[in-house]
């Protein structure tokens, strides 16, 4: 199908929905690298005007990547919930934007709508929205999940404690972990990126995390972010695996470059469930995503990077994840050049995932070759706090000494909780109070209980 828009006598034509979506995308370096961006500011707005008039039903008939050759497209089409879609089936993309912002679209209505939305519809509407629109609608969404505690309740914001160490040294990891716990972080999970993906090293870290969690009865969950095939192997050996991690992308080809496919994810999900380690619920998949991942494996198939990203959320949605994390600025300036692009992408990812019904959090981050700094991260952190992000990262001093990038710190989490009146996950907050680590106002206290925690490590 062809789409067009005439401005001052010149008619812009877009040969496919795929091209229209790409040209309508707010500017970012990755789409320029892929040769997909609008040629001028005017063409971009022309594409947005044309996109606004596209009926949502068109998205059910025109796939951006063919059904026959891509299992993610098949997943999207085959699991589309017609009944949930019916209430908005008469709308255009522009109409959907206006309706989402209306008071009629309340939390319950949006929750019921989620399975009726395809990722392409969600990506399309986000391209027509300003940053404040993305924040306002995301704030209306509430996605609650449970494993050993409860994530996503309105008014709460959790933190993934990320105690990475360049050589996976157990004491080095434990030192960062204790630092984070004493600053009130760790309710989303204690999640380590291992320096090596060997099953033995991963297993050793999982036992270490489990022992510490048990010893101090911490109501949280652990995760070592090894490849899903490694985790599967460890589950077979009855290693204490709480959350099952995997990086995912929005095309079959990009997922293949990660060494995964949908049936492997299903197998891992079922294996995780078989351990029955969740005490409050059984959401246990933990997915990481990020704009640009499909292009970086040359598997974007002409689709813009933001639409590819939202297709990854369709993959995540199939496995009732505990948490999803967009590692927004990690990929580098060839995909998101500066603070402005990273902030925009972060708000898009959070909005799109929430609208699709996912428990979205974010690694608010950048690398040293991107034009960004900690001020940009403060801005995005504050905006996402307002938007109701489920969790953020907590890294000592925001400096990850293993992955060599900057994210958010334990202090940053306390800042955003304080200025916005957000609280930790309720079960974890109770634990912090019982331990005397925090008071009701989120201030850190000094007490003997804390000393036990770190004396256990030193002694």
């Amino acid at each position, binding site marked *: 199908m062809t789409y067009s828009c005439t401005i001052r006598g010149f008619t812009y034509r877009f040969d496919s929905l795929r091209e229209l979506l790409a040209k309508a995308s707010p500017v970012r370096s990755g789409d320029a690298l892929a040769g997909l961006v609008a040629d001028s500011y005017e063409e971009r707005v022309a594409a947005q005007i044309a996109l606004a008039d596209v009926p949502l039903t068109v998205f059910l008939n025109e796939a951006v990547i063919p059904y026959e050759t891509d299992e993610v497209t098949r997943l999207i089409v085959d699991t589309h919930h017609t009944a949930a879609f019916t209430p908005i089936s008469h709308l255009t993309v522009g109409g959907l934007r206006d309706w989402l912002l209306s008071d009629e679209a309340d939390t319950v209505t949006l929750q019921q709508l989620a399975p009726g939305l395809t990722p392409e519809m969600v990506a399309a509407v986000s391209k027509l929205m300003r940053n404040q629109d993305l924040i306002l609608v995301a704030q209306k969404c509430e996605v609650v999940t449970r494993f050993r505690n409860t994530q996503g309740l309105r008014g709460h914001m959790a933190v993934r404690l990320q105690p990475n160490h360049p050589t996976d040294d157990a004491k*080095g990891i434990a030192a960062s972990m204790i*630092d984070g716990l004493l600053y009130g972080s760790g309710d989303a999970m204690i999640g380590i990126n291992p*320096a090596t993906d060997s099953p033995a090293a991963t297993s050793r870290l999982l036992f270490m995390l489990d022992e510490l969690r048990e010893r101090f009865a911490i109501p949280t969950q652990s995760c070592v972010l090894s490849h899903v095939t490694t985790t599967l192997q460890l589950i077979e050996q009855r290693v204490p695996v709480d959350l099952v991690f995997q990086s995912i992308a929005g095309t079959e080809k990009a997922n293949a470059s990660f060494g995964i496919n949908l049936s492997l994810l299903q197998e891992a999900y079922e294996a995780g469930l078989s351990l029955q380690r969740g005490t409050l619920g059984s959401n246990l998949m933990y997915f990481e995503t990020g704009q640009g991942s499909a292009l970086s494996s040359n598997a974007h198939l002409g689709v813009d990077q933001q639409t590819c990203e939202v297709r990854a959320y369709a993959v995540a949605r199939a496995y009732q994840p505990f948490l999803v994390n967009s590692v927004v600025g990690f990929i580098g300036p*060839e995909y998101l050049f500066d603070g402005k692009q990273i902030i925009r992408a972060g708000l898009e990812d959070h909005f799109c995932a929430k609208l699709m019904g996912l428990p979205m959090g974010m690694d608010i981050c950048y690398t040293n070759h991107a034009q960004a700094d900690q001020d940009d991260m403060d801005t995005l952190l504050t905006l996402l706090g307002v938007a109701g992000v489920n969790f953020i990262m907590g890294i000592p001093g925001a400096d990850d*000494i293993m992955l060599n990038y900057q994210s958010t710190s334990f202090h940053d989490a306390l800042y955003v909780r304080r200025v916005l009146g957000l609280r930790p996950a309720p079960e974890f907050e109770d634990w912090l109070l019982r331990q005397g680590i925090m008071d009701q106002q989120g201030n850190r206290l000094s007490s003997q209980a804390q000393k036990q925690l770190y004396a256990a490590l030193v002694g």
Partner: protein
Amino acid sequence: MNEIRKAGVEPDEWQSLKAYTNARIALGRTGVSVPLREALQFKLAHAHAKDAVYSALDMTDLQNQLAACGLPVYCVRSRAIHRDMYLQRPDLGRLLDERSAEQLQQIDSPAADICIIVADGLSATAITQNAIQVVSGLVEKVQQTGFSLAPIVLVEQGRVAIMDAIGSLLNARLAIILIGERPGLSSFDSMGAYITYAPRPGLTDESRNCISNIREQGLAPVLAVDNIMDLIRSAFRFQLTGVQLKADSNADLLSA
């Protein structure tokens, strides 16, 4: 630490844990925020990293210093004209600009075993601090081993894969590129070495081997030369580089 308290800053009681990690733990706090001293330390580290990314190679100086190795030294550029283009278009940083390609072609270099290339990459600072030592060490050892050397090539705004075009234009059986790595907060002067057997345009990273973190506080340049020589010898023995050459190392395979 008591004297810090007068500034309203509360130190953390677990300072002793710093012995176990270089992570920024036990920073203390004022209210819930990072004390200024720590905030400035972080800023300084970031400033070093940013300065390294935007640092430029002093080509004349490098050329003069490298001439001491006794080999001709040529200066070329990639198709990325300036740094911001380099950062956004890695594809252009992998290609030689037309004039540079012509220049290397005109040399009409006879077939050689090894060609050594030096590129700024993401940190010219890393090159300025480490390249001379590694290149001179390599030239000496390579010649002792009896391998022949092509001219040395210096590249501005270069990415790793530019070695394929250069190595093939110079008729080299194996190419080595020394290149500035992406600066981290704790290491802004870290150099990487990539080795490619039978370099030719179109290769991908799977066909290379890498030695990273070459700097005084990391893998010292003297040791790096030995490691590179080991790789060169295996590459010629098996007539390949890449994933297959290091099949015994689990870590390298999985992080590729």
